[in-house]
């Protein structure tokens, strides 16, 4: 009915190859963006920003990053926490060494540094595959966390080894530090997420993305048709780590404001982001959003429902939360093994035919 391509004529190649070829899709995304940029900042408060939006936005960036590596290029990585730590510590060192430079540039540079580190730890992927690689990336995870804990230079020789973000402003509005207004923090993360998503979407549609997918589907075959596995795999590691580094920098500077590496960027973080990618859907940018939303929102929702709504004891509610999240993951997988993104695709297919399915 509304959702269809009929009557939507393309008269140029550019139009034909645009990101969202269906008009309704396109408008829907514009509306979502409009609401995210022009409506949400005016109505959110501290709780919504700190408990829901910031974690969602930042994890979505990290999930996009990991999805490029795992979903598009087929290299399972459990080093996400370590790479986020690189982003966070790079951002911290840059912020404190060059206070006059804008924080936005620091965040992007932090992403760049993480990309370089990612390439180094991506080297084993040329020989090691599948779950063996996943476990090999754990070496990066543990080593990076250890080194940030061990070398005092990284935390500017502070007594406890915590790093905390000094106050920085963008266009006169503070975006890090204690006095940050909720909307300012939200906007910074939203801008980064939007740019990341657009960049990732276009990268994966282009030549780079096709090479990655060729490697994912069968690397030997890809090599035979002329894809250089060295370049493809390492570029996937670089791009993926770039996004993850940005996520780590924002996680530290804008969201938490102070972190300790072992706790904030431990192995659990690596698993969490991987869960997001798999639940959301491998090889789908939308899936990254859906997975991040699922794992950030669901616990908050369940907690508010069980404790706030039903008045259960907090420990029982917390345990039940685990049971429900676990059961839901299994239920989703049994219903649709390819993640929330696949559910979404199926729903869209149905919508295109609706209301005349035959």
């Amino acid at each position, binding site marked *: 009915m509304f959702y269809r391509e009929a009557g939507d004529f393309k008269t140029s190649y550019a139009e034909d190859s645009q990101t969202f070829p269906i008009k309704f899709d396109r408008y829907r995304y514009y509306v979502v963006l409009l609401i995210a940029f022009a409506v949400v900042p005016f109505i959110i408060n501290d709780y919504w920003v700190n408990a829901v939006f910031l974690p969602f936005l930042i994890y979505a960036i990290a999930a996009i990053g990991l999805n490029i590596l795992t979903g598009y290029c087929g290299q*399972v990585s459990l080093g996400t926490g370590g790479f986020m730590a690189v982003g966070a510590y790079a951002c911290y060192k840059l912020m404190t060494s060059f206070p006059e430079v804008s924080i936005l540039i620091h965040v992007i540079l932090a992403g760049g540094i993480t990309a370089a580190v990612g390439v180094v730890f991506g080297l*084993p992927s040329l*020989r*090691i*595959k*599948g*779950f*063996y690689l996943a*476990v*090999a990336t*754990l*070496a990066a995870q*543990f*080593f990076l*966390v*250890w080194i940030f804990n*061990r070398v005092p230079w990284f935390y500017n020789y502070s007594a406890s080894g915590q790093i905390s973000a000094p106050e920085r402003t963008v266009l006169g509005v503070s975006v890090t530090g204690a006095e940050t207004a909720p909307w300012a923090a939200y906007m910074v993360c939203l801008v980064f997420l939007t740019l990341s998503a657009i960049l990732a979407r276009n990268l994966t549609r282009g030549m780079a993305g096709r090479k990655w997918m060729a490697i994912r589907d*069968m690397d*030997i*075959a890809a090599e*035979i048709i002329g894809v250089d596995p060295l370049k493809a795999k390492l570029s996937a590691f670089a791009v993926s780590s770039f996004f993850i580094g940005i996520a780590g920098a924002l996680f530290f500077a804008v969201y938490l404001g102070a972190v300790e590496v072992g706790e904030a960027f431990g*192995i659990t973080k690596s*698993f969490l982001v991987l*869960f997001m990618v*798999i*639940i959301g859907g*491998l090889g789908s940018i939308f899936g990254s959003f859906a997975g991040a939303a699922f794992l950030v929102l669901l616990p908050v929702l369940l907690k508010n429902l069980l404790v706030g709504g039903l008045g*259960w*004891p907090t*420990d*029982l509610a917390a*345990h*039940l*939360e*685990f*049971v*429900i*999240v*676990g*059961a*839901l*993951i*299994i239920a989703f*997988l*049994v219903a649709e*093994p*390819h993640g929330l993104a696949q559910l979404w695709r199926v729903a869209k297919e149905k919508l295109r035919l609706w209301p005349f399915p035959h």
Partner: protein
Amino acid sequence: MPEQLVYAMEVFLNGLMAGVLYALVALGFVLIYKASGIFNYAQGVMALFAALTLVGIMEGQVPFAHLINAAFGTDIHHFGWHVPALLAILLTMVVMIGLAWLVNYFVFRHLVSQEPIILFMATIGLAYFLEGVGDIMWGADIKKLDVGLPQGINEAIDEFTFGVFDYGFFIDNLDIVATVIAALLVASLIIFAQYTKQGRAMRAVADDHQAALSVGISLNYIWVMVWSLAGFVALVAGIVWGTKSGVQFSLSLIALKALPVLMLGGFTSIPGAIVGGLIIGVGEKLFEFSIGPLIGGATENWFAYVLALLFLVFRPQGLFGEKIIERV
């Protein structure tokens, strides 16, 4: 003999023992991976769950007491009896078999022939689920587990080595017992796999699902059996590690200690898990002993992985893993 060398020998022996403990956890992963291609993330949580159940049964705890009390306003905690260790272990095994059946019935039956990463994800869901259920059933406090395993320094070795080197070695009795248990476990698993009908069926399924199906082997039966075996291994690991540290949430994290072992030994080989465990145990302990003090210590966690990585660069399928053959 120079002092440092004697110390290094002690560290080496303790490394071997630690390796056996890691291997105990890794075995459970190997069993399931071999038979069904599932990388079972929930293995650590299964060990926790098994140990919790064991303590709960031994102490006569009422399962779900907290939930029942919260829902009905009652105040029940214990049945008031104590179950002897051996019987409790048997009862726990029954629970683990039940769990295996449930897991197969509700989860993996529906996910046959999915990609490995999907199956992996399902085990993550399982891990969440079991963690929550374990806590609700038995409570989140730390429990002392005592099934009669000895603990503490072995006097005989201490005295003997003192006579030889003038320095008594420290070997934990629990580690010795664990080594014996692990040896028995591996021997019986190998005998089971090689010489029994069920074991042969299991290997057939591991080789080729469809071929096994076509000669009349019930896949469901084999999978339930494999998960039960993994549950049994988890129980053993839970008992040994639980005796060391008390039964508590952190027990589920021992899986992280098993991953480098798996990677080094190969996901599909039972002897690989043992040899991998020994190499990792000795490697990380000797590294901590020799290099650790120079670079600030606490190196074991990452060194285990780096060591495994080094091996993998030369043998991408692990030491004993099946050779990866790729065809286009």
